[in-house]
């Protein structure tokens, strides 16, 4: 009797699980393309605001190589580097980098530099900073992140690349110092490294698509 009941209940539960899984498979199948499109559009939009159209004739999104460098790029997993080339040669690179020491975890950013020793711009892609304070690193909330644009790239770590409180040249926010500090330090590390490695970054093979990493 009890075994019969168990069997019946088990079968019913199994049927529900199966039906639910089926429903989810269908939904995922129907939305997967669109989700990837959205993520790509978001990244493309950011890439294109950092590296203007006239600076490249190649497909930025496809011309991408994966680099693993936890000390500089903040993640133990590979981060994509996008290369911009025009008919006159190499023009710019955009590096995905991570500030591991934000107020609440990782801050993912896209940093673009050109071949003339200048920062083209920085954008935050993903973060979990405090709403109303640390989230001023988003362009939606504040223009702060634009202060990196057109800065010269130092040859080594420079005291200028700190928040004002620490004697540097960049503003902190009222009530939030940890977030801008983390962002500035990560950007500084990334641009110094990328500027020194430009040659090899431009020459590395395009391998982002093969690994299926579309972030």
């Amino acid at each position: 009797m009890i075994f019969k009941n168990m069997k019946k209940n088990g079968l019913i539960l199994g049927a529900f699980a199966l039906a639910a899984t089926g429903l989810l498979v269908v939904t995922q199948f129907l939305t997967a393309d669109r989700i990837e499109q959205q993520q790509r559009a978001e990244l493309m939009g950011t890439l294109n605001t950092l590296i203007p159209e006239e600076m490249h004739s190649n497909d930025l999104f496809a011309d991408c190589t994966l680099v693993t460098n936890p000390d500089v790029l903040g993640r133990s997993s590979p981060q994509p580097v996008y290369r911009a080339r025009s008919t006159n040669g190499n023009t710019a690179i955009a590096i995905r980098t991570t500030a591991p020491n934000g107020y609440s975890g990782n801050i993912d950013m896209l940093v673009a530099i050109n071949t003339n020793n200048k920062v083209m711009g920085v954008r935050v892609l993903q973060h979990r900073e405090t709403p109303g304070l640390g989230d001023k690193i988003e362009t939606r909330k504040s223009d702060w992140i634009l202060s990196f644009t057109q800065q010269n790239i130092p040859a080594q770590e420079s005291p200028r690349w700190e928040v004002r409180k620490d004697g540097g040249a960049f503003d902190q926010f009222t009530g939030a110092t940890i977030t801008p500090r983390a962002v500035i330090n990560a950007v500084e590390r990334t641009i110094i490294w990328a500027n020194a490695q430009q040659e090899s970054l431009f020459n590395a093979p395009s391998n982002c698509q093969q690994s299926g990493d579309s972030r």
Partner: protein
Amino acid sequence: MSEIKTLSKNGLWENNPALVQLLGLCPLLAVTTTVTNALGLGLATLLVLVGSNITVSLVREWVPNEIRIPVFVIVIATFVTMIELLMNAFAYSLYLSLGIFIPLIVTNCAIIGRAEAYASKNPWHLAAYDGLAMGLGFGGVLVLLGAVREIIGQGTLFDGAELLLGEWAAALRIEVIQFDYPLLLAILPPGAFIGLGFLIAIKNGIDRLHAAKQEKQAVTKATRARVTGQT
């Protein structure tokens, strides 16, 4: 008809999931920093509630009593995952700002509570209406708390509404007060607790006023009856 009326009254006021049952506090407190976020999560919760209520009600004949809870959990989790995927595909910028709070709808006890308390015992159309009323009650509190926290914390209303409603909604943004310093307390979780406490207090106050009024009415009626009795 009267059942519908009771359901609306219960969901929106007397048994409001956020103010009386105090269910679903985790998403409630986490997301209500702005009206836009609150509205987004409110709508998502409403959809899940109605969907899960209808499904639970439709399958109630086939689900043995012993395994009803796991079945409810499967149904709710499925709905939440579907909504997350759909939001990711069709409202990407909102998905970015609501982020981790969507999966949290699964942990909203208001939903399994309604499945267990109402939907598993009533026909699907009533269960759907119950989900709607409860969802509106929950969403209403979410939006109200979001509005209070946004005004006090940032001095704005409907900031970022375009992420949820499309480009036209950018015009909805109202600058209520200009702050040099945002009032941190309102934006951080303690502010949510304090705000919710005030909302509950106001609701209880209104209830008490209402009860006192009714008592008075009953008393005057009774005296009048006695007066007419004497003459």
